[in-house]
């Protein structure tokens, strides 16, 4: 743990990403304690008020303005981060687990398993997200769990493809043969020998997916699938503010910025983490 922080402090980019991410996560965790205006209730008369910095600490101040129902955007952003981060990270992780597993399976087993899985990927890619989303709503009804499900469904293929390619080359490495030589089972080889060696690409895909998934939440809310109003989420805020982009820029720009910052921090921190967990680059003792 000590190494962890010392290493982290050495990398400017990694530290920046980590601090930023920590702030975002802490804000999300402690949102209820921050005495922010209620994010789900607004004053209709104060709707679409622009950001004002005068009297910042007075109760009626809206440093980032208000939305179309007069709710404080700052408060919605901070409270929304809970839902957004929860949904996005669950979806990314879920998609990551499934995709990584299937990628390893396809790559390691090869042959028929591989061909079936890869055609499955083709099929999945050809079906538009919207149809998939509607199907899930129709079949299971709208709920947060289903949002996560849809997002994870669109996500696993990206992992699977990239991991599979990686595994194809790993499979030929001698340590895999060595594992077979000692009588290790296929599952053991897949999880203990191959998996740790594909975590890096999985991490890279994951950081990229995070951005996509957060934004996708906005698309889903057009279908009524996303997070239900008035619960705040960044995607929802993007979707709802869209109409007002030209007259009330703050409604969309701040959630957009929040997404960009989150993605940025996750990327920077992820890059560093990747190096940290790569034993090759971590020989600093």
């Amino acid at each position: 743990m000590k190494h962890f922080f010392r290493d982290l402090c050495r990398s400017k980019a990694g530290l920046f990403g980590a601090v930023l991410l920590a702030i975002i996560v802490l804000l999300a965790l402690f949102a209820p304690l921050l005495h922010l205006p209620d994010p789900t209730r607004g004053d209709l008369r104060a709707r679409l008020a622009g950001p004002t910095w005068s009297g910042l600490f007075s109760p009626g101040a809206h440093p980032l303005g208000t939305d179309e129902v007069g709710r404080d955007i700052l408060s919605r952003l901070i409270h929304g981060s809970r839902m957004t981060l929860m949904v996005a990270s669950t979806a990314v992780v879920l998609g990551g687990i499934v995709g990584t597993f299937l990628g390893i399976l396809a790559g390691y087993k090869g042959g028929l398993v591989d061909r079936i899985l890869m055609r499955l990927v083709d099929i999945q890619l050809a079906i538009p997200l919207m149809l998939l989303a509607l199907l899930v709503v129709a079949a299971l009804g709208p709920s947060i769990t289903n949002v996560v499900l849809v997002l994870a469904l669109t996500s696993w293929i990206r992992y699977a493809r990239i991991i599979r390619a990686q595994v194809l080359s790993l499979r030929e490495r001698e340590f895999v043969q060595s594992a077979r030589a000692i009588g290790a089972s296929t599952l053991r080889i897949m999880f203990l020998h191959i998996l740790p060696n594909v975590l890096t690409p999985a991490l890279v895909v994951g950081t990229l997916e995070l951005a996509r998934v957060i934004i996708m939440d906005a698309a889903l809310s057009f279908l009524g699938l996303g997070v239900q109003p008035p619960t705040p989420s960044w995607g929802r805020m993007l979707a709802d503010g869209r109409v007002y982009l030209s007259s009330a820029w703050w409604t969309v720009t701040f959630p957009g910025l929040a997404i960009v910052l989150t993605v940025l921090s996750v990327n920077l921190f992820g890059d560093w983490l990747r190096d940290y967990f790569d034993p090759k680059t971590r020989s600093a003792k």
Partner: protein
Amino acid sequence: MALLEIKNLTVQFDTPGGVVHAVNDLSYSVEAGETLGIVGESGSGKSVHILALLGLLPTPPGRIVSGEAWFDGQNLMAMSDRALREVRGGQIGMVFQDPMSSLNPVLTVGRQLKEVLVRHTDLRGRALKDRMVELLDIVGIPHPEARLSQYPHEFSGGMRQRVMIAIGMACNPRLLIADEATTALDVTVQAQILDLVRKLKEDFGTTVIWITHDMGVVAELADTIQVMYGGRIMERGPVRPVFHDPRSAYTWGLLNSLPDEGARTQRRLYQIPGSPPNMAKPPAGDPFAPRNPFATERCRAEVPPLREVGDVPGHKVAAWYDLPALLAAQKEETQ
């Protein structure tokens, strides 16, 4: 006159584990027409100093701290990139060790051979093609014409290595540098390649630097042998005196480690005690001192300079001790 003269070359790597002192104040020269065999511990800077010389060192993490390398009156270290590219491949041919990864897998062998010829010679069209075929033929690849349009993966390891050598000598370089060029090959192919290099020397007076772990190859091919350890030269000189009368404890250890030829007489091979130095924390004095049973206090404290020894001119050793004397003393003791 020396074709290549390296002066005070120091190369370091910045790694998370600290600064690796890969090459330390290395100086030597190679005469035109000479064949220099370099042997030594892995990690002793054999490959790195060659890469530094040719401007091929990966920077970062590598860093040339100081040094000059005079090739034919020009300092390679001070040369512009552009000028250096004229020298590489044309005047200095290079053969790397790993034949599996040193050829570009997606280009045909012919193309990879052609590139270097087009770059450094005026051969074009028919003449170019003829030269390519000739080169493959020289290195002993059957059906050269057909092979030109094949990809590296269609060649066996030995054949790939021969292609690498063909590329290295394609433009009749004045200096050919081979870095463990035959390690992965069986001895017949190795012998073939050694014959080839000898022929090259005879026909063109090519100067050769041959890096290897195989003492047999050095004995067979080289005029001069240079033994390296910890980024420094331990011993250097014409092959005969060095093989027969090693003056460095490390050279002595190396030669001793070889199995006897002929019927098996030893139960165990001699092995040098200890393990290679961590070049991120190099020992203060003689890098070999920690493993050297003959080491003195001075060895551990102070880096010995390379000094002339023995009767054969050019035989030099970097050691504070006098090995023959010590060995004689030891022999007496055991008796």
